[in-house]
């Protein structure tokens, strides 16, 4: 197996809702090695999205430690978060989160616009390449509202992989798709994984989960089960 990329210790996220405190995550210890393909499952409200958001540096834990590639993330200054989000992760949201009135191509190019390191030489070319990879070579100049749900999701996936990240985090990427498109998306993730990316997918669909190498089960903000899928 590869090296440890993600390690959390007693990761906790709680929300104060008036009098009561809602615990979205309770003392989660979670380890991910490179080149893993993990499916996270669990009932609605069990904390899957919360976990993924914290792993993707989009949200901060209330307490606990998050160590990314050996570095404690909580010790990062505010400004260091941006390059992390930009270089390490590709995030796919359940609700796509594409910029409206902006073409598919420009949406995919967006992470490269903010890439100060300039790791990708020709942003336009890379964005076209990523769109072709998700099978949207002929939809580059469509606006999001001119695309179907599945096509929008694929644009979002192209945006997540365009900056060639180490880790792709996908929150119910197939939630809005029919069975065959869902299968296509999973095949794409398997391909990317084979090429060396670490991928974590949140899903409710057991068939999708079966494509993963490891299935993590969540319940009430805790990890309740963690199984390797036998090949």
């Amino acid at each position, binding site marked *: 197996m590869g090296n440890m990329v993600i390690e959390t210790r007693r990761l906790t996220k709680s929300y104060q809702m008036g009098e009561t405190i809602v615990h979205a995550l309770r003392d989660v210890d979670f380890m991910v090695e490179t080149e893993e393909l993990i499916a996270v499952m669990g009932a609605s409200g069990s904390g899957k999205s919360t976990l993924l958001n914290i792993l993707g540096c*989009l949200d901060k834990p209330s307490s606990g430690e998050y160590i990314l590639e050996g570095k404690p993330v909580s010790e990062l200054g505010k400004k260091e978060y941006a390059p992390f989000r930009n270089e390490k992760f590709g995030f796919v949201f359940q609700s796509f989160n594409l910029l409206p009135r902006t073409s598919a191509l420009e949406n995919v190019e967006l992470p490269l616009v903010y890439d100060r390191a300039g790791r990708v030489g020709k942003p336009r070319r890379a964005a076209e390449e990523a769109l072709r990879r998700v099978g949207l070579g002929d939809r580059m100049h469509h606006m999001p509202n001119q695309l179907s749900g599945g096509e929008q999701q694929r644009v979002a996936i192209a945006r997540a992989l365009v900056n060639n990240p180490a880790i792709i985090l996908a929150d119910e990427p197939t939630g809005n798709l029919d069975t065959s498109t869902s299968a296509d998306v999973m095949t794409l993730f398997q391909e990317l994984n084979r090429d060396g990316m670490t991928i974590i997918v949140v899903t409710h669909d057991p068939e999708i989960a079966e494509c993963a190498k490891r299935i993590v089960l969540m319940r009430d903000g805790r990890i309740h089960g963690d199984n390797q899928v036998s090949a």
Partner: protein
Amino acid sequence: MRSLLTSLGIIIGVSGVIVMSAIGEGSQELIKQEIDALGTNVIIVFPGAGRTGGVRHGAGSLNRFTFDDIEKIKREATLVKYVSPAVRSGGQIIAGENNWSCEVNGVSTDYFRIKNWPVEYGAHFTVHDVQTKRKVALLGKTVADKLFPDKDPTGEKIRIRNVPFTILGVLKEKGQIGMGQDQDDIVLAPSTTVLYRLKGGRYIDLINASARSADQLEEAEEEIRTILRESHRLDDGEDDDFTIQNQTEITEAVTETSKIMTLFLGTVASIALIVGGIGIMNIMLVSVTERTREIGIRLSVGARGSDILVQFLAEAVALSVTGGLFGILLSLAIVFGVNEFTEYSALIKIKMILISVVFSAAIGIIFGFFPARKAAGLNPIDALRHE
């Protein structure tokens, strides 16, 4: 759409302020010209005491003015710079085919200096012309246009009430004054000529004079009063049998109106600016709130807070600049229209353009900047969840 609305706010703010202040400046300029047209430090003496008390004394022959009074003022009043009689007459004036009826005013050469009234063509008459009662005349612009359309009438002959006169020149246009009284609908001739050849008798109607300086207006008035009381043989206890008015009194009312007008327009302009400013502010605030999701998306793919700020600032600046430019263009068009098609005059001051543009731009930028900075500081996920 949103950017259109923002620009509209700026356009209205900018053009409102420029146009209002331009009209204010314009009317002040107009009033200043009117006051200048009255002459410099002018003192006017009417016969009769009447005006103040409301009842007008019958102007008996004794208390009217003669050329002797003028001479006396000229000799004895040290603070009076110029003094001219005015002998008022009028009637039909014939020039070839054309004829026109208007006032004919007999004055001395000092009159042109008191009134700041240069000639357009030809020349003023001289002291010698006055002494020799020469039958020469100067035409007001309106009269010249009526009698001699499209031509310089200098040297032509006219008949005033059948008395032949030679035209020496045409006076520069003075325009209307107060309630639309045309100052150019007049013929000026030597006072002696008008009195002895047209009107008859020995009395002059008015005395026009000017003080050496604005400060000495009151004292000069006093000098004239003393001289006239003496020549009219008034005892110490008796009231004046004449009335003296000076320019300050005449112009005070006008200046007062102009001040009120400027204040009013200034208020309207400030309101336009504030309304425009609030509009811009509102749209900027709404814009950032609406776009918090967009900010969340950008943050989640790795934009820095500073990237977001730069983007919003650039947009605010672009909007303010285009809005400001269109505002200036619009106000130029309106000001042109006002000058061309109405009797008001508008005068654009660069200062006002700068103030209004800077103000709207500052509001646009400030209110684009602060909410954007707040949104840029959010966790991406909170920005994405924002509604």
